[in-house]
């Protein structure tokens, strides 16, 4: 499982960070840093919640 960010859509609001603080962190310049791009199955639930929470639909989970 891999997290993909569409940088054109992301506005740096950080709703993902609220759902999954171990996976996402908005930087001081407003850009989004993915702390772990390939989370394990143990983090699937929070990764999915983060994707769902994004109001600009900037996040997707890709199954490799």
């Amino acid at each position, binding site marked *: 499982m891999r997290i993909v960010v569409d940088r054109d859509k992301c*506005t*740096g*609001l*950080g*709703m993902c*960070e*609220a759902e999954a*603080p171990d996976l996402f*962190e*908005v*930087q*001081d*310049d*407003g850009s989004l840093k993915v702390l772990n791009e390939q989370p394990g199955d143990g983090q699937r639930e929070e990764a999915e919640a983060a994707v769902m929470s994004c*109001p*600009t*639909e900037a996040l997707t989970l890709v199954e490799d």
Partner: protein
Amino acid sequence: MTVATEFIPATSEDKPAHSPIDVSSKAFWAQTSEQRDQRFAQLRAQDPVSWQRPVEDAVAPDPHDPGYWAVVKHADIVKVSRDSKTYISGQGVLFDLLPPEFLEMSQSFLAMDAPKHDYLRKLISSAFTPRRIQRIDEQIKVAAREVVDGFAGNPAGEIEFASECAQKLPVRLFCDMFGVPDELREQTARCAADIVSWADSEALAGRTPAQIQLGAAETLHGIAARLIADRRANPADDLFTNLVQAEVDGQHLTDAEIGAFFVLLSVAGTDTTKHTSSLTVKAMTDFPEQRDWLRADYDGRIKTALEEFVRFASPVMTFRRTAVVETELGGKRIIPGDKVVLFYPSGNRDADVFADPECFDLSRDPNPHLGFGGGGTHFCLGNQLAKGALRALFSELLTRLPDFEAGEPDLLGTNFMRGVKRLPFRFTPER
């Protein structure tokens, strides 16, 4: 990236007759939210994207305005909100028609599109992320405690909640973040409240809507000018300093741009949370079992409950977009120049999404309400701050004054904000 540079006028071409289920009249907006929802429910069932006559009694009427599409279903509001390439904000975002000079002074990036919107918003957005708001959580808690300290021991056991409690916390948090000094805070709060009161006869007190809005916007620009001068000389760790130091394409923002930014955020950052907390103490009075449910495990339940506070209150009632490409919505053909108005309280009572939508149900989960907007690039920047403030305030109220009772709210006459002017609030005083 394409940017619409030319204004696309609205046209009455190919439009149906104006809907008989009218949501443009002054009388409609003078009703309570519960009364209005009966008509919205009719539209949701019969004509979810209806062609409406122009808003009645506009502040700055436009004789060429053919009307607008009223969007009342949850799914359609989300669709429009998330498609900012089809539905832009740069041709205005308010339902009412207001004087252009006021809009210029007050809307900032709210009424812009990419890329300028994104750039301006990012100047401050990192201060509002969940992590950053959590970092000031202690500060929020102290502020909430001190606001409640201000009246909890009042021997009369009664206050006017909107001014003595609801407004105080968000104003303090907003002013702390922007670095507004103590002596200017009351004036800032009053002007922010005036800005949304343009259609309320009591607030107008003999002035015209344009006078009250321009007066308030000019005063806020004056406050901003003082802060700009001060932060240029003495940079500080606050958002005002960010704005003064920011550069767009190698240019600093102008004083007028910073002023408009300040007006937008002073309204967005204070008024919405004020009305939400007022409407929530009223809801907790009307649904006492919900208050008991929350009190039984406040820390475990408040995260879910907060979403219902916002859904139930729905303080922001309308925003507008303008279509710039031909599209289809709810079976209707939308063409460039068409105004599209989003009615958020209607989406928040849509039974296709919310079971028993008229019930205040703090355990509602999931709760995909539209209280912070329908998503997309204009989604409420301050949502985490608002939730932090509400969480801290209700923790104080439910612990210290658990038997509080709210009376009937005196509502603001407006088609923009579901505002509470006054709300009687009784409680057993703290000893």
